[in-house]
């Protein structure tokens, strides 16, 4: 435990420094993005029928939310706020705290991506083992080809295909947001069913897009383990096939757990295209909206939350590996 505690302390210290560095870089990059949001807002209001004079006035009030002072002053304010988890106020969301806006969007990203990732992981590793064991047979070929195919198709193509098939050609599933507003929120059957219905296509897209990677990685890992001496010894000892299978799976899955932890770190980044296709109002869409509107506080907050998630995932992955691999736990060097 001492080794793990020491590792954790080191990771946390490095993580905090990294977050501060990334926050600083993000702050300046975000504010260097070209484009005049004020002029754009005036034009937008004019297109909506407002007179030019009124549009300018309305925009002036709206952008009163913008942080004042020099860039350096704004930076100091931003970093001070960061220490108290205050990321400032959003312009597009009428001065709402950025943390609240991000939290609202995060749940619509995390849950579907988490569900899709775990589903693809489970299916991928199970079929990956079969693909490795049956690699000389037809089943192995079919599984390997399915993995290669789906690994090569971009997420947004899968999303568009699923949407076209199941929401337009055979309209049995919705592709228009996270839940039907007609159902009263709560633990009632209609509402839960609506949530589930609306989640099917995005979750399926995430799952199908990630499945290829998992099955190929698991197959490769299992093939490597199959050649290890302890498997040969087990076979020579006449162990049951089911026990040998468990040996193989346990040893082959270790590196995949690390990848899984890192994948979960990317959850908060969302999948912009998937969220756009299915009108899922998560962090990906929020990020695009904030960039379009040059909502600096929201943009900075969105980038920061993604960064923090990745750093945390790295720490978790490392600690997790320490826990599941006895060699790491004991401080022994392990070759990658």
């Amino acid at each position, binding site marked *: 435990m001492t080794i793990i505690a020491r590792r954790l302390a080191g990771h946390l210290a490095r993580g905090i420094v990294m977050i501060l560095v990334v926050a600083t870089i993000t702050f300046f990059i975000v504010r260097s993005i*070209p*484009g*005049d*949001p004020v*002029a*754009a807002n005036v*034009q*937008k209001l*004019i*297109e*909506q*029928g407002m*007179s*030019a*004079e*009124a549009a300018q*006035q*309305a925009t*002036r*009030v*709206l952008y*009163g939310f913008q942080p004042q002072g020099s860039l350096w002053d704004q930076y100091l304010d931003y970093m001070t706020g960061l220490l108290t988890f205050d990321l400032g106020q959003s312009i*597009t*969301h*009428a*001065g*709402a705290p950025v943390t*609240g*806006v991000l939290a*609202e969007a995060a*749940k*619509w990203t995390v*849950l579907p991506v988490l*569900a899709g990732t*775990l*589903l693809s992981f*489970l*299916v991928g590793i199970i079929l990956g083992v079969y693909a490795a064991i049956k690699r000389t047979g037809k089943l192995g070929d079919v599984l390997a080809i399915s993995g290669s195919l789906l690994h090569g198709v971009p997420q947004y193509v899968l999303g568009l295909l699923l949407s076209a098939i199941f929401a*337009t050609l055979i309209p049995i599933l919705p592709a*228009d*947001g*996270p*839940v039907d*507003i*007609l*159902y*009263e*929120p*709560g*633990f009632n059957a209609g509402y*839960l069913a609506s*949530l*589930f219905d*609306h*989640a099917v296509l995005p979750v399926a897209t995430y799952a199908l897009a990630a499945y290829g990677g998992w099955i190929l990685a698991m197959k490769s890992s299992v093939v490597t383990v199959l050649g290890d001496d302890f498997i040969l010894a087990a076979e020579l000892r006449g162990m049951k096939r089911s026990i040998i299978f468990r040996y193989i799976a346990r040893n082959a899955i270790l590196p995949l757990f690390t990848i899984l932890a890192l994948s979960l770190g990317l959850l908060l980044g969302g999948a912009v295209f998937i969220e*756009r296709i299915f*009108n899922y*109002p998560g962090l990906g869409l929020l990020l695009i*909206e904030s960039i*379009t509107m040059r909502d600096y506080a929201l943009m900075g907050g969105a980038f920061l939350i993604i960064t923090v998630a990745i750093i945390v995932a790295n720490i978790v992955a490392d600690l997790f590996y320490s826990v599941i691999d006895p060699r790491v736990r004991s401080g022994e060097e392990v070759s990658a």
Partner: protein
Amino acid sequence: MKRLAAVVALLGLASATAACSGGGTTNTSGSGGGGGGGLFTTIDVTRPGLDASGPANPWAPKGNSFQGYNAMKLGWVKNHLTDPNQFYPGIAAKWEIAPDNSSITIHLQPNGKWSDGKPVVAEDVRTSIGLAYTTGSTAFAITPGAAGAAAEVTVVDDKTVKVTQDMSNPSMKFARGVMDTWVVPAHVWGSILPANFWDTLKTSRGDGADAEKAREEILALGQKVLAFAPPKDVSAGPFVLERVNPGEALLLKNKNFYNAANVAPDQVKFLNYNGNEQIWNYLSAGKLDHSGFVAAPADVMNRIKQAPGSNTIKGFSPVAVGMAFNQSKKPYDNVHVRRGLAYLIDRDQVTKVASPEGGTPAVTTSGIHQKPAQEWIGAELAALEPYKHDLAKAEAEFKEAGLQKKDGKWTLADGSPWKVTMNAPSGFSDWISAQENIKSQLIEAGVDAEVVTVADYPVYLEELSAGKYDVGFWLMALGPAPYDIFQRLYGVSNGWSNVAGKVKHSAPGKSGNWMGGPEEIDVEGVGKVNPGELTAELNAASAEDAKPIMAKLARTANQDLPAIQLWDYVNTQFTNTARFTGWPEQDSDLLRLTAGVWIQLGMIKAKQ
């Protein structure tokens, strides 16, 4: 497989739990009586999208107040072709505008009630006007000397309010500015305004440090107004916001609405969107009862038209799109080059490619949309140069400008290459299609051309304003008020600023002057014209006084061509007749208002 099923079930439950945490537990049963028209499904294309955490606040940039549904104004501006002061009733049942435009007296709906049962009274209007001052727009500007600003707001009785105009800088649009006011309940919103608000407002109208401080205080209140979130939506409109999630908003019928008996739908569902393609899909699937116009390629438009019940209604839209020049750059400083391009570009073809459903080719380039142009300048319109597609005339104009044609290609006067570089923001598919078509036409006529797509609209506007482009697209002819029409050509972007009735001209490249046209133009048959000053005169001119000024400006724009008017937009609305009837007629002025206004006026009926 059992384990897998368990995991899936757990994930489903987790998802439900998280989503439930943000929702309320209100009853979905309709609160309104009568009608029984069911669910009306629509989309608000003029807004940036729903915001689940947004307030029911008409001033919030991304709130959940929907014009004509749960958000009400004193009256609904008709956008009449020539008269800015015509309205449909809203909170106000009737109104009287003084003959000299010095005041408007508003009589509220006698049976008007808020959704919580309290009557709509004059004090609600006064409070709403106070709130409007804090966002400082239209008649309630606090900028000293602003055109058309209100001077006094007087509660005459419980149902009557009188608002007078500051006649030191009057505007024809004063009454419009007043009637265009959001009205919210004083018993919900009143706490935002401090007790001394009206005294502060009085002080702000003076000069000196105290006045400046008062103005700052009032504008600071604006931020509170924009962010204010009433705990519950209290509406005087036909509907009340029940709840909203990130994908949809639900409004229920307001039984206290003064015309509730004629409001057909029990519920209204607003769908969210984050791109045109989602609206296309909704329309193709026949999901929407109504949607405003969204540009769509021909195949998508055909798909939409094939949906059962699909229908479009078309009418006047007071906007045109122009190909605008940066006259600080050669050869666009030469009017013959601009005229040559006007002759060379076939506007019919451009419109057919870029906006067949949403535009009609401009019959000439006058700065005014074709339809109000008939009303404003009448016979003068026929006297303007139509710039019909004519390659010979284009060639003659280019030669007049000193351009040279070598081996079938036009070069600048000194023989150096000439390439027309057009810029458009990414995502503006109709503009990009138009520019691509123009490029093809130019190249065919020997003028080298290219289209450069810019990252997005904010970048486009910033770079346009900084004078980086030679040629860009620019919205113009924004009616119906005459001043609004011409300030797009002869306003800030071309050097003229109009502050408190005083017109100043900035040199090209300064203070947003990217068009860089001449300050004075010699117009054939008219004489020397300062178009910026003439435009400013339109602010206070009566309709009759405005007509000769409009004629002069149309001639100036037609001769000098700061922009080539390409097509006039057409207001195209998508409706679906499968569930509701009673839609506005083709060309109805109601098309410039939301379907919520149609519903509250009692037009929309459930299909039997």
